[in-house]
């Protein structure tokens, strides 16, 4: 038997997981479910062009149908795997089938606004995506960033306060990156110049931001709420024509400007990291700083710059909570989203697209949890909320293939010291 490469082994394991889940779903949600209940999916939110109004189907049949689809996708993936091809498309179809099979079971007898579910999922992924992009920038260049939470919170606080004082969402958006940058500059100074343990440092910075924002919230934002903490919010902008596309339109093109900025950030980071000189250098200092230094790259300067940019990205993500959401800042309103972003970064194997996919998945799980919580279902919402965390533990324990951080991630670089 020929030996498999690491990527092939990973593919084999995920194939195995997918097939097992597909079989389980078909049996548990399909065959074992009592028939009689109907699940209804709604596809229209607004005045977009209508493809389907809604789709009502027996819950058992739907679960069976999607279970069989995921089984078919698993079979296809197996064939592709044997032929030595990648199994990305088949995996995506298979996972979607598994998810839909579960959903059809969980929402038996209920109405699910399908388009709204996905639109909300994208919205909930926004801070996760910004946060994980900040993680990509910083960690690919070799600086561990567990202070994403603090950068998001600082962005949320400052943009909320500035938007409230100036009555302008635009100003709120403009200052948010600088707030995040302030925190990440602290991270950069202590991590790069003083060579302090970056995990401890990130932890301490989070506590510091929690402390300062909690303090100022109680001291200024509550007593002087009308001036300091009643900022305006961004409204959704419909992109002409595009938003009218059935199902996809309202999800992708009827969102606030933060979401459109997010598209830009994702493409820019993905492109720059793999297609530009800066990207090559960034990856080099993250993997092998000594080698990078030997060809004349200023390791610490590049790291410093990247960590600062990372903070700006996370800070902008923080604006989502205040100007992009409810307007007013609330104590510790990021509520651990920075850590889910970290989870998405790790789950996505430190790659931009991986992190985005993981963040979308976590955002979907979060929104599914709240939608199912409203309509009432057999699964306690607390277990749905555990999904991102459990998924990340499974990812780092190597069950679906080991994830590996950039080789020099977290190691301060000093010229002349061997690594």
């Amino acid at each position, binding site marked *: 038997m020929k030996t498999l490469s690491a990527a092939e082994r990973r593919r084999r394991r995920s194939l195995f997981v997918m097939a097992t889940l597909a079989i389980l779903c078909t049996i548990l949600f399909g065959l074992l479910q009592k028939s009689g209940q109907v699940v209804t999916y709604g596809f229209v939110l607004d005045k977009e062009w209508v493809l389907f109004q809604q789709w009502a189907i027996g819950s058992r049949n739907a679960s069976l149908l999607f279970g069989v689809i995921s089984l078919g996708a698993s079979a296809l993936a197996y064939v592709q795997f044997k032929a030595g091809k990648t199994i990305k498309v088949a995996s995506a179809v298979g996972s979607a089938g598994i998810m839909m099979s579960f959903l059809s079971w969980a929402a038996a007898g209920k109405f699910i606004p399908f388009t709204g579910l996905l639109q909300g999922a994208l919205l909930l992924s926004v801070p996760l995506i910004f946060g994980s992009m900040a993680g990509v920038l910083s960690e690919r260049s070799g600086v*561990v960033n567990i202070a994403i939470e603090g950068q998001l919170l600082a962005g949320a606080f400052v943009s909320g306060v500035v938007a409230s004082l100036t009555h302008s969402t635009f100003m709120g958006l403009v200052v948010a990156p600088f707030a995040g940058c302030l925190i990440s500059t602290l991270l950069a100074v202590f991590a790069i110049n003083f060579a302090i343990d970056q995990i*401890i440092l990130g932890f301490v910075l989070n506590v510091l931001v929690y402390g300062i924002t*909690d303090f100022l*919230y109680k001291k200024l934002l509550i007593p002087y709420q009308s001036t300091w903490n009643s900022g305006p919010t961004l409204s959704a902008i419909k992109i002409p024509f595009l938003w009218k596309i059935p199902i996809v339109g309202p999800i992708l093109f009827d969102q606030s400007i933060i979401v459109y900025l997010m598209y830009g950030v994702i493409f820019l980071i993905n492109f720059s990291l793999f297609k530009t000189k800066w990207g090559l250098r960034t990856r080099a200092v993250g993997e092998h700083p000594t080698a990078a230094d030997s060809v004349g790259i200023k390791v610490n300067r590049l790291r410093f710059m990247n960590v600062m940019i990372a903070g700006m990205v996370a800070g902008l993500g923080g604006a989502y909570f205040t100007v992009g959401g409810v307007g007013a800042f609330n104590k510790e309103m990021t509520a*651990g989203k920075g850590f889910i972003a970290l*989870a998405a970064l790790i789950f996505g194997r430190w790659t931009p697209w991986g992190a985005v996919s993981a963040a979308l998945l976590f955002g979907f799980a979060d929104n599914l949890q709240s939608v199912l919580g409203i309509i009432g279902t057999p699964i*306690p919402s607390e277990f749905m909320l555990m999904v991102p965390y459990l998924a990340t533990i499974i990812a*780092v324990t190597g069950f679906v293939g080991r994830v590996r951080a950039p080789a020099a991630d*977290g190691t301060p670089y000093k010229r002349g010291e061997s690594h």
Partner: protein
Amino acid sequence: MRKLNFKLPSFRALKLPGLSFLLAMFFGALLIAFSDSTVLKHIGHPIDFIKAGGVAVWQSYLALFQGSIYNPSLATPHDSLLAWYPLSETLVSAAPLILAGLSVALAFRAGLFNIGAQGQFIFGSIAASYVGFHFHLPIGIHVILSVLAAIVAGGIWGGLVGLLKARTGAHEVIVTIMLNYVALYFLMWLLGTTTFLRPGRKDPISPDVLPSSRMPLLAGNNYRVNFGIFIALAAAVFVWWLLSRSTWGFRFRAVGANTAAAKTAGISVPFVMTSVMAISGALAGLGGAVHVLGSDFSLTSGTAGNFGFDAITVALLGRARPMGTVFASLLFGALRAGGGTMQANTNTPIDIVLVIQALVVLFIAAPSVVKWVFRLKNLKTTGELAAKGWNG
């Protein structure tokens, strides 16, 4: 009997923590002054501004002291000792903190960063309160069994992390961050179940633990200080003994100092990682028990409060030494207890404590800042908390 060489920390070793604390208090004072509306009125007049700022800071820090150590206005003609009531409160908040801090400190010494004290604390308090309110057992046995349940629950939750690290190389920081949330959601789910929901209540709160499972009070019914503080101090002595007097502790430290060398020397690294994290988790779980059985009595979704995270700051401030952790916990316990009084009596929110905590740890971790501010040449710094990153 072997002689125990108990050394008090030397003055030089206390210099860095002391100066860091001073510096953090200074920055805290700036924050208090510059966010106070009555102080800011004088912004045009430097002299008045400094005066008003000084008054605001003095009042806040005085309230902090009165809320944590001694407050003469609490004394009554019948009982002048009541002025020491705040000290009892400090000990009440310090006891669980010492235990959780020891949990983090012990793991540090074996080269592991246990961010998961929060989750282990939660599991400890769940187990302790379950045994505490669900079973009817004789006095004495009940409290011991509740405490043991917490030790086991915390130990399993922590040991799991060590096992995963040893078997698969999963970084303990990532796993513990994630497990903290899993523990919190588990607790929230549990509080909605009929077993844990207090009869007649809809909000998530468990029944009170039975009196037979509570920690004995130490100074009468007027003070909340309880036997938990002795448990915490005993645990500190145990950790000190474990680390510096036992073979196990030697192995822990060897793995912490140089994993590869320890492996070459024949120490089973997987066993060390699992057992360190299990003992760590047990300590944090014990902290949960002391908190629930000593002062809180019931379980809510906020039971663990900030203990698990404060634990990290005290372990860092105490340089991962058992006695250092005890002193740091007493200090931060005092800040917590005093913070409440400060928030009630002045318009300085308790959250300033969090800022001071973060700054103290930041300065401890970066001695260069302290050196530069105080123009010191030969500050004693130790580098046992070295940077490792995800692949370390």
